[in-house]
């Protein structure tokens, strides 16, 4: 989860601590589980934050760098990506599970292990490459359909958080088809879903995925060519669209707010030569120290059966260097007010945007943290963001014509091995011609776009920033009714601040 929902303010005074705990205990708006989770977060935050250098602390204090509300004293990696393929093959000593012999046992084993996968949301952000996992157990398709429906329902009702993600593809399989059919039928926001797409993916399967995407807003499409060049075949898309090695994960996510950085700078030169390098260094320091805390002080890997059974390896964990607000940073620094001079519309602005990303990339890859390596991640925003556009996106309401929008997006996504994504709502006519969407995806991927999400302008399930919510749930939540999904509350806030409902719908007349 890329947000600090339900978190009490950090660094609270001891005198207030009890009050804060009591407030959580008695909050009528929180369910039992939400109280439990908030209490544990509050406990984590009783300790002082991991100590930073004075310089780094200044960037943290003014919100230019942010630890994503992961907690002052992190004791587990933000995202854990277990090797579920291996788990199904070998079973688990710790969980006392034999390798499954049919699809029911496979589904049951998965449901069991999900309960033991740590993450920042207390629930798994990755539940596996489902078609690849389940295909070997399909004997009878009807039975498989029932079993897979049960699995998806289980995840939707227990994890109930759209940051829970599964992957499918790139090949056409029976399991993959069943998952897509159920996705269309069930119309649920959880789990989030990505189709790993490459030139081996048959058009027919891709078109099925697009049809599902136009009714249920998932799956999103992943440019496998880009990611497998960086990670090999063994990577997963998790949470929003974070890309991480399987059998590893993401230790922490830091976030550089480029808008705030630009607000603090006095000139382009000062930004590029002083503030930006300092801020990048500050964020690297914060991530580095927090990661050391997880590994060296809390010794996460030493008491994890996932590590003991080699479902995760410490060396496959990386740090995610997130950023937001490139558009605002470029426009502010260049003083671009007229639309044709602004980011997304003007070559100079776009080139400057690229220069900023290149500079960050160089600085980050030069940094040598104690554990793992850091890679760029295009952070999707948090629900309280206002006036900050996620990652390198063009702000909602300023979208140029679609071909230009796609080209700028592809150009800016090059340096983000830990994932980045953009969203395109298409008008409902695309449903009758899913091939049109496939043409757009193929074109975009040939230009090295990494990840493309889409939905139809008339869908109930829609994508807010990286995660999915039901429009109808947001309305219910706004009316004060309890809904199962954690994301409805986030969505409600973000729909306002991120203007998700106002995105330019892409249509035939889109010149």
């Amino acid at each position, binding site marked *: 989860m890329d947000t600090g929902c339900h978190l009490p303010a950090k660094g609270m005074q001891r005198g207030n601590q009890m009050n804060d705990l009591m407030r959580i205990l008695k909050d009528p708006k929180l369910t039992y589980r939400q109280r439990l989770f908030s209490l544990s977060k509050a406990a984590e935050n009783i300790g002082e934050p991991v100590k930073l250098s004075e310089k780094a602390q200044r960037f943290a204090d003014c919100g230019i760098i942010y630890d994503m509300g992961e907690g002052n004293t992190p004791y587990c990696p933000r995202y854990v990506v277990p090797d579920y393929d291996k788990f199904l093959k070998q079973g688990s000593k710790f969980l006392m599970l034999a390798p499954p012999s049919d699809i029911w046992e496979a589904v049951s084993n998965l449901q069991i292990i999900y309960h033991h996968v740590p993450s920042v949301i207390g629930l798994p952000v990755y539940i596996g490459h489902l078609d690849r996992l389940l295909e070997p157990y399909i004997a009878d398709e009807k039975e498989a359909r029932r079993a897979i429906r049960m699995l998806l329902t289980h995840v939707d009702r227990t994890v109930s958080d759209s940051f829970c993600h599964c992957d499918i593809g790139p090949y056409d399989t029976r399991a993959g088809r069943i998952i897509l059919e159920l996705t269309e039928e069930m119309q649920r926001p959880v789990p989030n879903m990505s189709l790993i797409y490459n030139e081996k993916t048959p058009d027919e399967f891709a078109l099925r995925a697009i049809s599902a995407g136009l009714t249920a807003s998932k799956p999103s499409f992943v440019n496998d060519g880009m990611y497998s060049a960086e990670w090999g075949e063994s990577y997963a898309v998790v949470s929003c669209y974070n890309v991480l090695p399987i059998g590893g994960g993401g230790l922490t996510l830091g976030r550089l707010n480029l808008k705030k950085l630009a607000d603090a700078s006095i000139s382009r030169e000062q930004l590029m030569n002083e503030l930006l390098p300092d801020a990048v260094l500050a964020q690297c320091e914060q991530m580095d120290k927090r990661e050391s805390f997880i590994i060296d002080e809390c010794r996460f890997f030493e008491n994890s059966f996932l590590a003991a059974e080699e479902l995760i390896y410490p060396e496959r964990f990386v740090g995610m260097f997130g950023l937001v607000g490139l558009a605002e940073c470029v426009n502010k620094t260049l003083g671009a007010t007229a639309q044709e001079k602004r980011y997304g519309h003007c070559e100079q602005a776009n080139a400057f945007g690229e220069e900023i990303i290149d500079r960050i990339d160089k600085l980050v890859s030069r940094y040598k943290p104690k554990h793992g390596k850091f890679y760029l991640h295009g952070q999707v925003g948090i629900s309280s963001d206002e006036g900050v556009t996620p990652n390198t996106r063009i702000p909602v309401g300023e979208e140029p014509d679609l071909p230009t929008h796609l080209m700028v997006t592809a150009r800016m996504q090059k340096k983000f091995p830990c994932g980045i994504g953009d969203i395109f709502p298409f008008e409902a*006519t695309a449903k009758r*011609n899913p091939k049109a969407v496939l043409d757009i995806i193929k074109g975009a991927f040939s230009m090295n776009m990494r990840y493309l999400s889409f939905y139809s302008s008339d869908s109930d399930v829609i994508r807010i920033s990286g995660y999915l919510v039901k429009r109808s749930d947001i309305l219910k939540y706004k009316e004060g009714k309890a809904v199962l999904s954690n994301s409805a509350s986030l969505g409600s806030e973000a729909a306002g601040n991120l203007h998700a409902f106002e995105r330019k719908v892409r249509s*035939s007349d889109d010149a």
Partner: protein
Amino acid sequence: MLKGYVNRIIPFSFVDGPGNRSAVFLQGCDFSCKYCHNPETINMCSGCGRCVELCPRGALTLSKEGIKWNSGLCAFCDRCLKVCSYNSSPRVRTMTMEQVFEEIREALPFIEGITVSGGECTKQNGFVTELFREAHAFGKTAFADTNGETDFRSIPELTKEMDKAMLDIKSSDAREHIMLTGSSNETVIENARYLASIGKLYEIRTVVVPGFLDNFRTVDFASRLIAPYPEVRYKLIRFRKWGVRGPLEEFPVPDDSVMEPLKELALKNGVKIVEVI
């Protein structure tokens, strides 16, 4: 270098054939259908100058060479189209094939092909042939959206360069066809047979206007005609009054109770893909 009269270009279209396509709308058509949605594409500008004074942006000027349109000033308010009593538009541009492709250059990586529509594209067959050739040079497909008024056998160059056509069968009855379009349907039907027989018919369409056309008769006839060619699709289009001028302006949009039986009829006659829109 041949020049074409271009009414407008839509870089991305989801509704002009398979996949995502750039649609090029040409100016000029010999039919004058009572339900025409874009009557401003029918005739060439007469240079009467009426629209010039009414343009709120001063985007139009009249000189000896005819009307001139300044796209930079235009607000696309369509006032000029509404006042033109010649069924024309001052925004028609004279373009070379290169200019058309320059305009869709950014769209090219994202499209399956181009569709030339109208107006009636076969009236400018030399220009269209060049567009198709260029599309193929880019590895794109080339489709024509045609009313079928020109015998495709008489324009072999274009027919050769064209991948497939989308053809209207507006009415199976000659008299009704004349009443609706001002022309007979003989060539249209001959074209449907010919293009289907050489594998160049992508789809036929019929606009359904209950109370005005004998839709049942036309759908029955047209579906039998294409049934032997399972790859040819049939699109049944509900009449919509958007853009329509004249007696049909106030006709209602037919609902499913009209469209579904027609769809069933086409399926029963052996058409494999029938779409109602």
